[in-house]
């Protein structure tokens, strides 16, 4: 298996020394993200996120299945993250690396366990039929901070997604095709976003947001904080690494909250633009009523 190219001593020194002088290689400030951009596909539920040179594609899809026996009233919701050799040749197909496991756990905790998607609304017939929603995350290019980009892509894809409309009459479930009835959005409760801090220095005293690959390779620790714009923490993960002062972690959380509010506003704006673009025909009346609820 080809190995990931590790930074040489000189590169390592260069990045670190620049950081000591409060300089980043791309001359960003410490708490500044690279330009974040999200685009939606022609289909519903496809979101492409680019964060600098990092690029992530998320696609949401839904089908009708049988609910789990122990949760007859809930739908099925899963997030699939498989890193392909496209992101880096060191990722192998069908063999999860540590990065992949941690990424999928983080997304799971941030989006699924925090109850962002109302899984009860996915239930069609209790114990027999439910929607199974799945989000596939594809990392196309890995230039650092895949976690934040993936989380944003997942949330964007799910909020953009429309599942086919259904009706139950006399115990018979009908799933309408998009041609028959306009698909409906998912029951969405809140939008969590991840903000990842990277720590540098002997005691982890320097904290940077949105590290690039080069910075990620020389960092001594990281902490991913997931929040929504209401100021609720969905998860925090500082999984080891060099210990960092508790006070710094609290400051990081406060800054993360302002970033999450920015993300939230940006995504709302983009989704509104997309609805407007699709509604050129003027079928907007019923759709907007749906969305305001």
């Amino acid at each position, binding site marked *: 298996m080809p190995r990931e190219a590790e930074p040489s001593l000189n590169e390592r020194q260069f990045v670190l020394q620049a950081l000591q002088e409060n300089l980043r290689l791309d001359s960003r400030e410490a708490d500044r993200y690279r330009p974040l951009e999200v685009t939606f*596909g022609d289909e519903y539920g496809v979101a492409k996120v680019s964060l600098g*040179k990092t690029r992530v594609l998320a*696609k949401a899809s839904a089908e009708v299945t049988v609910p789990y026996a122990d949760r007859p009233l809930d739908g099925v919701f899963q997030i*699939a993250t498989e890193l392909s*050799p496209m992101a880096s*040749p060191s990722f192998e197909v069908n063999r999860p690396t540590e990065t992949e496991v941690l990424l999928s756990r983080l997304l799971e905790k941030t989006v699924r366990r925090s109850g962002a998607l109302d899984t009860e609304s996915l239930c069609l017939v209790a114990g027999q039929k439910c929607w199974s929603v799945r989000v596939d995350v594809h990392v196309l290019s890995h*230039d650092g901070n895949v976690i934040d980009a993936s989380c944003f892509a997942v949330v964007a894809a799910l909020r953009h997604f429309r599942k086919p409309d259904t009706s139950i009459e006399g115990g018979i479930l009908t*799933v309408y095709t*998009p041609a028959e009835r306009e698909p409906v959005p998912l029951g969405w409760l809140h939008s969590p976003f991840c903000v990842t801090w990277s720590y540098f220095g002997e005691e982890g005293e320097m904290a940077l947001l949105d590290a690039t690959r080069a910075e990620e390779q020389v960092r001594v620790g990281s902490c991913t904080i997931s929040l929504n714009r209401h100021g609720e923490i969905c998860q925090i993960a500082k999984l080891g690494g060099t210990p960092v002062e508790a006070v710094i972690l609290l400051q990081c959380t406060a800054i993360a909250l302002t970033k999450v509010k920015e993300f939230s506003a940006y995504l709302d704006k983009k989704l509104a633009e997309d609805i407007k673009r699709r509604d050129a025909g003027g079928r907007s009346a019923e759709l907007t009523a749906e969305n305001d609820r």
Partner: protein
Amino acid sequence: MTVSAAPEAALSVLPRADGSAKYSHAGYTITASVNGPIEAQRRDEHPYEAHVDVVVRPAAGVGGTRERHLESVLQSSLTQIILVKNFPRALIQIVLQIESTPGNDYVNTKLFQASLNFSIMPALFQTAVLALLSAAVPMRATATASVVAVVSQDKEKKLIVDPSAREIEAAQSVHVLAFTSHDELLLAESEGDFSVKEWDDVYETAKKICCQPESQKAGIEMVPDDDNARGPDMRQFLRSTLEEKVAADLHWK
């Protein structure tokens, strides 16, 4: 959904891969990355030639037998055009990520068993060739591919180039053909029942699309073609894409 008839492509879209391409045609959008030649794993290592590894990843769901089938077909045909003997014990890794497929508003598809069909093959093939070119992997020839469906309409057989999902459902047979730039037939896969005569027609149509002679292009100043079955000129497309890319890269000169 509007399906653009003309193919579109961009080269070197991914910053970290050795070579990459994004290609969209007839509703399919595919991104490919090529890494190589890189160190092969022990089990893939071949003492005399490079191993070509093709991974097809569907947009939603995990790949199944259909993807494996597409991978094996692509792998064997790409091995033919890549100069694999130049890189013994190495690996050339091609990852094809499907981003979107033409939607069918009239059917609710089972999405999790991501099912791919024949009509995606030319798009995959074309993207792979573009990505290989972008990665500067030495090749014997370039190649172009096309899909043709035979539909019976009022007892008459009709050929449709780049059929839509509905047309494929109604079609009697679907054929995928690929030609090298030396006008050799590289790949022929067929599905459904058809006669030898029909296949010959399909062959001629596909060949016209894939291997339009260069001289004709230069001589007859691009006569507007209203023959519908003719479809786009793939070889010219491949060429112009690369020319654009090279021109852009060498702009500073």
